């Protein structure tokens, strides 16, 4: 299977859309924009999983896709935006790294993912190779979003995006055990709950979501 085959093309395009959304996350400063980009990425992930389920004929992947569509494209973004509204956060998020440097770092990370992933998957099909590279880029970019945002919401969004990348890598290969998939999904929901409690907690204590306050609290010196 290679370029020009419809099953390959569609999954490739969906993965490419997720990568583009990672860059949008990196570029976006406003919290509602961040959440919308995360929701879009989750939706694309859901579609990618459904498509893979159809292309591979694996029924388990349909479930993965539905979970992604319901939880990642609707529920989690909705919960995050209610949280944001309740905490009264508007305007832009403070960035630890400027947009320019973080975009440059992002392209560097994507290049690194390519260079690392292609030889690793050298035995596999072209599909597996590029999908793995794209998925690894999404994971690395999620990590970069966590580093580049000082705001706790930004960090939660980065973490979710990283998880999206992991699932993307998992649906690309044949035969992901359903049990593992379900447990990651459950883990993610727990994670979202913990993040919500955590955000409300630090908001109450420091009257801000800037994680820099935590450093003093932990007794770290800068």
């Amino acid at each position: 299977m290679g370029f020009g085959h419809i099953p390959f093309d569609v999954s490739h395009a969906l993965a490419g859309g997720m990568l583009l959304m990672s860059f949008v996350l990196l570029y976006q400063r406003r919290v509602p924009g961040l959440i919308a980009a995360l929701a879009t990425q989750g939706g694309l992930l859901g579609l990618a999983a459904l498509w893979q389920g159809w292309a591979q004929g694996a029924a388990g992947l349909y479930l993965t896709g539905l979970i992604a569509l319901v939880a990642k494209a609707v529920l989690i973004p909705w919960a995050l935006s209610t949280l944001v509204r309740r905490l009264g956060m508007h305007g832009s998020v403070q960035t630890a790294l400027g947009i320019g440097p973080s975009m440059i770092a992002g392209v560097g990370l994507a290049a690194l993912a390519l260079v690392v992933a292609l030889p690793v998957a050298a035995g596999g099909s072209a599909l597996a190779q590029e999908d793995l590279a794209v998925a690894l880029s999404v994971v690395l970019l999620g990590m970069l979003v966590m580093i580049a945002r000082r705001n706790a919401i930004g960090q939660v969004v980065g973490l979710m995006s990283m998880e999206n990348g992991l699932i993307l890598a998992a649906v690309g290969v044949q035969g992901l055990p359903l049990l593992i998939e379900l447990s990651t999904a459950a883990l993610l929901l727990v994670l979202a709950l913990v993040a919500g409690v955590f955000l409300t907690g630090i908001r109450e204590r420091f009257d801000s979501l800037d994680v820099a306050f935590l450093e003093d609290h932990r007794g770290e010196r800068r």
Partner: protein
Amino acid sequence: MAAFAALLTQILHLALLLVLAPLLVGVVRWLKARLLGRRGASPLQPWRDMRKLLLKRPIIAESASVVTLAAPYVAVAATVVAALLVPSFTRGMALAPVADLLVLAGCLALARGALALAGMDAGTPFGGLGAAREMAFAALAEPALLLVALCCAILAGSSNIDAIAAVFAEGALGIRVSLALALAALVAVALAENARIPVDNPATHLELTMVHEAMILEASGRHLALWEYQAALALTLWLSLLAAIFVPFGMAPAASGPIGWLVGLAAYAAKIGALALLLAVFESAIAKMRVFRVPEFLGAALLLGLLGALFLFVSTGLL
């Protein structure tokens, strides 16, 4: 016979673009007005404005030199040459062999240079400010365009727009991540080059934010008509370029008869109409960004283009 058909399509293409350009601006304005709940002026309004301006005598600033007199003609000529190169309803026009993306970038750069010189010539502060901003944006937009050209050239094996459209229309290449990245980069560049909303507001004379309008503040009469015509033609040509590279479907292949051309014309009208609607919706939905954030926006476009090229280098084993 083939040479005659090539020449005929070239002339038809030019006539189509020349007539369509102000109409397209009018249509976008009308669509935006409808989206904002206003009635909006007729799509023919830009043509009427232009006729009115052409009947008026241009008033030249005392401090202006010959540059102010020559610049509108240079800019319009360069844009017309660029418009000749971008295919609209058919491939294989007479100038197709020289229709290179790099030539196109050069023509547009020439038009932009003339515009910036005209802005600075009269010596008014707004003109100079607009020219400085335009050039600062161009410093990022042009490399981004070149990277998009690089992506297309790697995929299609040529930087000729006609050849790229032919290869992409076959669909054998499939959908690539790099093409998505290149599309995002090219759309950002097109928005910046045409002074559309996130970068510049085409409907305002608010001095703090304007770029394109600031450079033509001193122009009047037929000079203003020429500048407005140049801007309209540039918008048409950018939309045609996006359509030709990323949705080349329906375009008549080289050496097809009048029926193929008619089909191509219908497809072209549909594509340009859809793009105009998208532009109007996009411009109504988002706010203009601060001038100092534009370099970030275009820098992001540049990096996306770079990433697209990088993907291609790796996946084709060139690296």
